[in-house]
């Protein structure tokens, strides 16, 4: 029996169970739904929420200060006209990508293990994109004219410049947000119906009832629902690749040494998935422990994510190497200088933080013991997130601070306002996330049930205890 609880075996002849703990459908419902039904969350939730809310307040105060005083409160100046604003934007958009990867790409690849983590990975995507969207919105100087980025008819008879990748970005990120939100909400409708049917108070019945739009699990509905789910997954898959590619075009189409490279789109996408998975794990490890979800978000889920981080971390390491190789092989003196300057110039410290966190730290995941030790892996993920933030810092700041003309070189330092804005964006992210775990089923119950062995309509009559058997799980 003991071995049934360890689902991290590498033996390919035995299919690993995705749900542990002798679960049946009812116990999955109970385990997940009760978290959103508690009259009061644990004290730790209130503390975390208080801290996050305070940091969100800090974000609001910093934005207010910026609006009332002007962009001079940031440390931007010639030659570095882009720094924390765009670093944070790229960082947060990247975080979001793992959620879409889990919900869409792993769905198309029939990776059933995604069902344990997809709901909150998708939630993470939405909250990360909200955080990302703030930065380009507030960095424009005259914020009251931000609507100029949209092609709206206006009295000046002007249209935006569609030949600029910055405008492509507007379309890419807003499409990404919309599609992620639709996908998330639609995936949640059956689970909201579960909460509606379990509701004991009139208010909960009404609120969850409205949100569940009268879902009743009808098979004629499931047929259309599943088809739409598949279509949305098929649309979100190229979309997620396009979003970070378009973000990388912001750099790659300009003439700045260190930016003007064709490697950027795949390199940005791999980096986004890498740090996004690190953020999923950062949230999943404490969540599964504090909310008692170890049977649904199992060690195997964590191990699979760690393997993906190892693979994408290697892609990132390879990209760092190829950038240097091409800078030398390409024979362009400015490009060559840009890369030597990254590794040995005034910002060399940030370059080496990036390399140690992104290339060296994930190598620990070669060890199965580390992959299956949640809190050790959690520590590695903290480093990965730091490293990926610094990657954007290195790319943006080193290239801008020293480009073609030495007389216009400069050094950029963030002001306290920029640092507090970054901190505040984490506050907003965690505030939204804590609200999510409080009120919404954070594991996709209907999807988890569908990958349990008992869900197989062609199975023989269930015998007691059969579902605890380690080889039984539907994989298709």
């Amino acid at each position, binding site marked *: 029996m003991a071995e049934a609880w360890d689902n991290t075996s590498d033996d390919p002849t035995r299919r690993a169970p995705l749900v542990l703990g002798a679960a049946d459908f009812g116990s999955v419902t109970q385990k997940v739904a009760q978290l959103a039904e508690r009259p009061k969350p644990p004290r730790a939730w209130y503390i975390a929420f208080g801290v996050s809310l305070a940091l969100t307040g800090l974000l609001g105060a910093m934005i207010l200060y910026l609006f009332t005083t002007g962009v001079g409160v940031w440390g931007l100046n010639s030659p570095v006209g882009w720094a924390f604003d765009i670093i944070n934007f790229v960082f947060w958009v990247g975080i979001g990508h793992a959620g879409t990867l889990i919900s869409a790409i792993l769905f198309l690849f029939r990776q059933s293990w995604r069902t344990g983590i997809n709901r909150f990975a998708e939630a993470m995507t939405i909250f990360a994109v909200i955080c990302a969207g703030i930065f380009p919105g507030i960095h424009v100087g005259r914020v009251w004219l931000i609507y100029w980025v949209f092609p709206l008819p206006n009295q000046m008879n002007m249209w935006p410049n*569609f*030949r600029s990748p910055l405008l492509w970005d507007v379309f890419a990120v807003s499409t990404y947000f919309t599609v992620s939100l639709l996908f998330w909400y639609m995936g949640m409708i059956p689970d909201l119906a579960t909460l509606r049917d379990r509701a004991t108070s009139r208010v909960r019945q009404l609120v969850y*009832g409205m949100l569940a739009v009268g879902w009743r*699990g009808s*098979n004629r509905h499931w047929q259309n629902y599943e088809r739409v789910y598949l*279509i949305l997954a098929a649309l979100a898959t190229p979309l997620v690749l396009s979003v970070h590619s378009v973000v990388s075009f912001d750099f790659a189409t300009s003439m700045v040494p260190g930016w003007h490279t064709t490697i950027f789109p795949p390199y940005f996408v791999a980096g986004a998935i890498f740090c996004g998975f690190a953020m999923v794990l950062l949230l999943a490890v404490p969540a599964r422990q504090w909310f008692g979800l170890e049977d649904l978000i199992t060690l195997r889920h964590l191990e699979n994510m760690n393997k993906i981080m190892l693979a994408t971390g290697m892609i990132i390491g390879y990209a760092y190497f190829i950038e240097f190789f091409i800078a030398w092989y390409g024979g362009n003196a400015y490009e060559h200088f840009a890369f030597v300057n990254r590794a040995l110039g005034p910002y060399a410290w940030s370059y080496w933080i990036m390399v140690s966190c992104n290339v060296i730290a994930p190598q620990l995941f070669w060890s199965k013991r580390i992959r299956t030790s949640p809190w050790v892996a959690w520590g590695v993920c903290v480093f990965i997130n730091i490293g990926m933030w610094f990657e954007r810092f290195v790319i943006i700041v080193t290239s801008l601070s020293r480009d073609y003309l030495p007389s216009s070189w400069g050094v950029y330092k963030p002001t306290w306002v920029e640092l507090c804005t970054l901190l505040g964006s984490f506050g907003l992210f965690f505030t939204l996330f804590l609200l999510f775990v409080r009120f919404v089923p954070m594991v996709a119950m209907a999807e988890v049930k569908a990958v349990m062995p008992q869900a197989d*309509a*062609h199975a023989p009559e269930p015998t007691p205890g059969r579902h605890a058997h380690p080889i039984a799980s539907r994989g298709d």
Partner: protein
Amino acid sequence: MDAPARPMPPRRALWGVLAEFDSAAALTRAAQQVRDAGYTRWDCYSPFPVHGLDRAMGLSDTRLPWVVLSAGITGAASAILMQWWMNGVDYRFVISGKPFFGLPASIPIAFELTVLFSAITAFLCMFAFNRLPQLYHPTFRSERFRRATNDRFFLAVEAADPRFDVEQAEALLREAGGTHLEWLED
């Protein structure tokens, strides 16, 4: 045999008869029997999509993807037209020596709008094809039916079915293994 949970409503107000099943497999077998008996106005209810149930119910494939495809084509076409009209015709300005309108530079937005139009349409189609939101449904009158979103499986034959006959429907559902039969009002 269990007793009906509630008295049968008058024939005129009868919506249908609901039966409960233990497992996805039992529901699928029952669905095959109801299909073979020739009923058309009936449905299965389950807490998750049961694979193979579409075929067991004899459902035809949904036409929904075609609607989404046409929305995607509309999205791509409107993106190209918008960019051509706005930068190539209505408001021409030279920037970085780039052409006023060029197909390569129009592709990213054409792609994004294809996805956006298709996704919104697919989402709305899920509601339209399923006739949702529908906050009231006769099955919601059943206390036991609340477990249809938890761990139980149901099958309901509607009185509106041309072949519907109270005794026959009841016998069929009992024979198919259904328990806790209920007659529901509309």
